[in-house]
């Protein structure tokens, strides 16, 4: 394996794949935090050059985190289709990039390639991509998910309505739901992050969501984003849920911090298959995001992009209905500014789709970074163009409980209108019948008024 190159007369050497992967990234504060980011612009390019010439086989045979030391690595290894891998293993990373983008490559070819990839290969090819590469490349890799119905079909754009409240006040939650529905947001899921993580409050929230769904005959899904073990206990006790949620990460030790193992998620999936509201087959919802490992010291010296790809590799085991990043959710130690956040959003969407996940997006920011709303909106437009399955719908873009800014109901409606996209068909029918969207999917006169739910 050659880990050295000469660029403009200077020799660049990289000790191992970990170092090479770190240095081949576009700049991220999280990589600098653990001292693995490129020191100079030329070193970054040299690393990309070296990486572009490695074969997929070399990457697979030099694991960044060996499977015997890490459950995430094991899950990813188990997920590889060996037949597909044999067909692609001689490709270089650079060759893989060009193959994925080529006009002559068919959708079926991309499907085959995908089955043979590991997370590290996906990370590697992503490091060679520009903004437009990531947008264009992802647009060729649509993946949908089906819970009660399908979301993520080309031509559609869905939203998770996120009606959080700092006291889990049910009236307050309902008020934000009405607002969101009045903008035709909420076809991916009505999903509440509860303040109190206990079985009673989780069940109470699920019941409330279910009542709203039933009262207005809204074809959608419901979820309460407590810890998965809390949701399992609520469902065992008879609470209604369409899917189960969990935050996941790219190393075993980060998942330990989150209180999850592959076995626990296996149980969760089996449980919701038996006792959930929907037939599926996709019944899990995961949230991820670059930087969660490094922010808690669980990164094992691996760069945050690669750890995010590993997270997706882990998530794939559960054939989820929804997966979204929240890169930008943590702080400047992981993603420093708007430029890094936009880049991370594009990378995450592309990597998720390449691995085969039904990726939604949450381009977002907190107030202790330099990222602002203009950056956030640029990221949103770009990943919408790339074909993101869904975004969040947060009242006015301001989550009053999690204290961060994400896409608003207004942004949701804007993107549908700009890009000519409509909700999932079942929800679209409902929204037209309810008088919120016209036949083209544009907001009607009546839309945007939460109080219509009090009079109808």
């Amino acid at each position, binding site marked *: 394996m050659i880990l050295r190159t000469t660029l403009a007369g200077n020799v660049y050497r990289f000790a191992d794949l970990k170092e090479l992967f770190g240095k081949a990234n576009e700049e991220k504060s999280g990589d600098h935090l653990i001292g693995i980011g490129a020191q100079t612009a030329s070193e970054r390019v040299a690393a990309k050059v070296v990486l572009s010439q490695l074969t997929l086989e070399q990457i697979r045979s030099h694991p960044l985190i060996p499977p015997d030391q890490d459950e995430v690595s094991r899950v990813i290894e188990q997920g590889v289709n060996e037949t597909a891998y044999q067909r692609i293993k001689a490709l270089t990373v650079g060759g893989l990039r060009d193959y994925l983008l080529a006009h002559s490559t068919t959708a079926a070819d991309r499907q085959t390639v995908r089955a043979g990839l590991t997370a590290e290969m996906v990370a590697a090819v992503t490091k060679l991509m520009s903004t437009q590469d990531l947008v264009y490349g992802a647009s060729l890799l649509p993946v949908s998910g089906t819970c009660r119905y399908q979301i993520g079909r080309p031509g559609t754009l869905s939203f998770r309505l996120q*009606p959080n409240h700092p006291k889990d006040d049910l009236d307050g939650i309902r008020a934000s739901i009405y607002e969101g529905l009045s903008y035709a947001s909420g076809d991916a899921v009505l999903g509440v992050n509860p303040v109190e993580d206990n079985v009673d409050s989780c069940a109470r929230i699920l019941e409330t969501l279910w009542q709203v769904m039933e009262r207005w005959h809204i074809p959608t899904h419901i979820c309460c984003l407590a810890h998965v073990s809390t949701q399992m206990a609520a469902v065992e006790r008879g609470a209604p849920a369409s899917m189960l949620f969990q935050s996941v990460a790219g190393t075993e030790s980060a998942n330990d911090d989150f209180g999850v193992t592959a076995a626990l998620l296996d149980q969760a999936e089996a449980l919701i298959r038996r006792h959930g509201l929907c037939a599926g087959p996709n019944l899990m919802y995961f949230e991820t995001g670059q930087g969660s490992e490094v922010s808690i010291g669980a990164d094992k010296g691996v760069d945050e992009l690669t750890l995010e790809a590993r997270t997706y590799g882990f998530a794939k085991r559960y054939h989820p209905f929804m997966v979204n990043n929240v890169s930008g959710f943590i702080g400047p130690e992981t993603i420093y500014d708007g430029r890094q956040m936009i880049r991370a959003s594009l990378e995450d969407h592309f990597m998720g789709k390449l691995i085969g996940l039904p990726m939604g997006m949450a381009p977002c920011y907190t*107030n202790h970074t330099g990222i602002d709303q203009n950056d956030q909106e640029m990221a949103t437009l770009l990943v919408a163009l790339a074909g993101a399955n869904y975004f969040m719908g947060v009242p006015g873009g301001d989550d009053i409980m999690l204290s961060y800014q994400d896409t608003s109901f207004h942004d949701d409606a804007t993107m549908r209108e700009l890009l000519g996209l409509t909700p999932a068909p079942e929800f679209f029918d409902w929204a037209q019948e309810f008088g919120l969207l016209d036949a083209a999917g544009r907001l009607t006169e009546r839309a945007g008024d939460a109080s219509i739910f009090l009079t109808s």
Partner: protein
Amino acid sequence: MDEQDLESLVRGVLRDLLSRDEPSDGLAPRGASPGVAPAPDRGGPTPDQSEDDPAGLGAADLYADDPQPLPGLAVPADPEGLARLRAATTARIGVGRAGPRLPHRAWLRFRADHAAAMDAVFTDVSPEIIAAAGLTPVQSAAPDKAAFLMDPDLGRAFDAATAALIKQSCRSGAQVQVVVCDGLSSTAVENNVPDLLPALLQGLERHRLSVGTPLFVKYGRVRIMDEVTGLLDPEVTLNLIGERPGLVTNASLSCYLTYRGRPGMAESGRTVLSNIYRDGTPPAEAGAYIADLSLKLIQTKASGLDLKL
């Protein structure tokens, strides 16, 4: 009525007069809105009269608007109902729209709130408040705020001298150890700890639990509580820490709890109560609740995922 009251009254009347030609939304203003943090006190505008601004107040103050302004939504189907919905949450609902976009007042208010939240990150807890609360101040290994923000591990450790000082000067082996950290919001500490701490200590006393020397850690992160646990060996350690500032409040506090924590423990071993502030769980109520929770941790010898609430 003193001079200040008079001044604010006059300003209020002028503001009302000036805002008469703002589009009316047909809703009564929310008045003292329940949920939204008051505008930061910037000392008030200084009158600066001119021909097109006879009152000298400048452009209409954004913070004089209803915090969830409505100009884009002319006639709600149920105006009173909408007012009720808005009263149920501090979320930005009922804001109306210009096409699919936010109406300009709502958009500018969002920007103003974002600006205020960003400015709030760089403040420190005042020494008077630390002293008045009876907290012993120490500092994490972070030398300054910028280093604290960029390298979380600095906020999770003490240097050797500080560790030795804590070990020497604080009571060890108590049942409950209280740690207060600025975390990502000094305002959260300033606004909540003065009411929360007495209620907490009272509650702990009622449960006959012994309490160690309460500490204040400047530039502290959540996990620094484990270092304190390692040094002082309490059963339960509480970390009252400022959450990252949001747009609606920059004063939200969390309490993280461990039973027999230790340095390097998994995060999932912690229990957390978040959103402690005036419009979330009010601080005095939170203090009493945390005292009860501490007892529960001791009785069940568990915290985090092992504790079934």
